[in-house]
């Protein structure tokens, strides 16, 4: 396949993904949250009782669909392969702090794009921080940063994470009494599209992201590193498509899906400095991990257990963020959250330095 062909495909995939994200909001998801890997993993942590923030508890079928969509297409394309062993605990810790950064900003890189497409200009501070975080990560990559190599593992290892996702779906459909759910009107956790719709959208986006290797961090990273625009085109297409769909929905329905401004934005706050620093931490950590939270889900569906560990780290980070009062709310960041982001920047920098200067590449 030529590069031109690949670019056309990722633009088309980005357009479909942006449209699906916009439609999910119309069908019940919270504003500008057709997809948010950080928010959705946080909701799943809550539904499993790992944190007790009553307003954000739900098993988001989008997450299950993303992993299973990637898994099924990877098996079909013979790209599924179990592997792992590339500094798993370091990845877990990086995942935790990426989540702390995301919950300071209130969204993962994917939702950052969707917030911009919904007119939430606070996300511009997030985008600026995200780019700066990627630049810092690239500084270390260029100097030899590595989490060292992974190895092939027995096939069962790679199948386990998709199986866990399938088990979550069984729990959601068959034994919801075991889970915790936000009560109707009780917060973002109660706002969701129908299970089948969310699952189908997740499956479609998971498959498209597996096929195109779409990554919100990879786009900006590859542009800086190699002047390679393919992934960035996917990023831009998601934004453009969601923006157009939001404008159409606003014109033809009773709802408002494009609300330009800083104030009055759903699941967002207006503290520019901490929006910037939250996404700086997220972008920085994601470059060291080799991909954004969406990409980690997709890779875990392909059998990459290092990415599965990263997702578990993201979920643990979400639980920690809500148990320790680190997560922001519409009223703004918390003092604990600010301290945690600073600690996160120190820890991530220590990992970057050790991964770059501490040991030789094996």
């Amino acid at each position: 396949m030529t590069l031109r062909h690949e670019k056309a495909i990722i633009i088309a995939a980005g357009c479909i993904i942006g449209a699906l994200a916009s439609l999910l909001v119309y069908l019940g998801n919270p504003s500008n949250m057709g997809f948010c890997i950080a928010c959705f993993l946080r909701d799943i942590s809550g539904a499993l009782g790992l944190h007790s923030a009553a307003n954000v508890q739900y098993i988001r079928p989008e997450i299950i669909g993303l992993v299973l969509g990637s898994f099924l297409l990877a098996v079909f394309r013979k790209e599924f392969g179990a592997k792992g062993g590339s500094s798993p605990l370091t990845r877990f810790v990086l995942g935790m702090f990426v989540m702390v950064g995301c919950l300071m900003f209130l969204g993962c890189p994917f939702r950052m794009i969707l917030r911009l497409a919904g007119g939430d200009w606070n996300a511009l501070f997030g985008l600026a921080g995200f780019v700066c975080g990627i630049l810092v990560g690239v500084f270390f990559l260029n100097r030899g940063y590595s989490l060292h190599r992974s190895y092939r593992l027995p096939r069962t290892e790679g199948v386990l994470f998709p199986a866990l996702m399938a088990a979550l779906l069984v729990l959601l459909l068959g034994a919801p009494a075991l889970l915790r759910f936000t009560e109707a009107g009780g917060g973002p956790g109660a706002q969701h599209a129908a299970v089948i719709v969310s699952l189908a959208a997740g499956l479609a986006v998971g498959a498209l992201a597996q096929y195109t290797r779409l990554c919100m961090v990879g786009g900006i990273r590859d542009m800086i590193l190699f002047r390679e625009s393919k992934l960035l085109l996917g990023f831009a297409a998601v934004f453009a498509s969601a923006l157009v769909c939001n404008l159409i929905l606003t014109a033809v329905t009773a709802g408002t899906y494009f609300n330009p401004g800083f104030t009055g934005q759903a699941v967002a706050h207006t503290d520019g400095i901490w929006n910037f620093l939250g996404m700086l931490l997220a972008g920085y950590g994601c470059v060291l991990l080799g991909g954004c939270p969406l990409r980690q889900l997709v890779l875990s569906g392909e059998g990459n257990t290092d990415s599965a560990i990263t997702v578990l780290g993201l979920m643990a980070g979400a639980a920690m963020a809500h148990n320790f009062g680190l997560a922001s709310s519409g009223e703004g960041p918390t003092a604990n959250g600010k301290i945690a982001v600073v600690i996160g920047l120190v820890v991530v920098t220590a990992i970057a330095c050790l991964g770059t200067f501490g040991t030789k590449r094996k």
Partner: protein
Amino acid sequence: MKIIDARGLSCPEPVILLRQEMASGEHAYQILVDNHASKENTARYAEHQGYHVQVEEQDGEYTLTFTK
């Protein structure tokens, strides 16, 4: 010919390694990778640098040979 072992490394490390090695300006390189993304990314980078790319697959691992 310089041989680079990038098996098991996650994106974008194989391309960065290749770029560093290609700075020496030799006429032929070989890189070992073990996933599709790394295969495609390193091949594309080498093509951009004006190299001819030849790919061999064996047991899920790829050997890419770049020549000028």
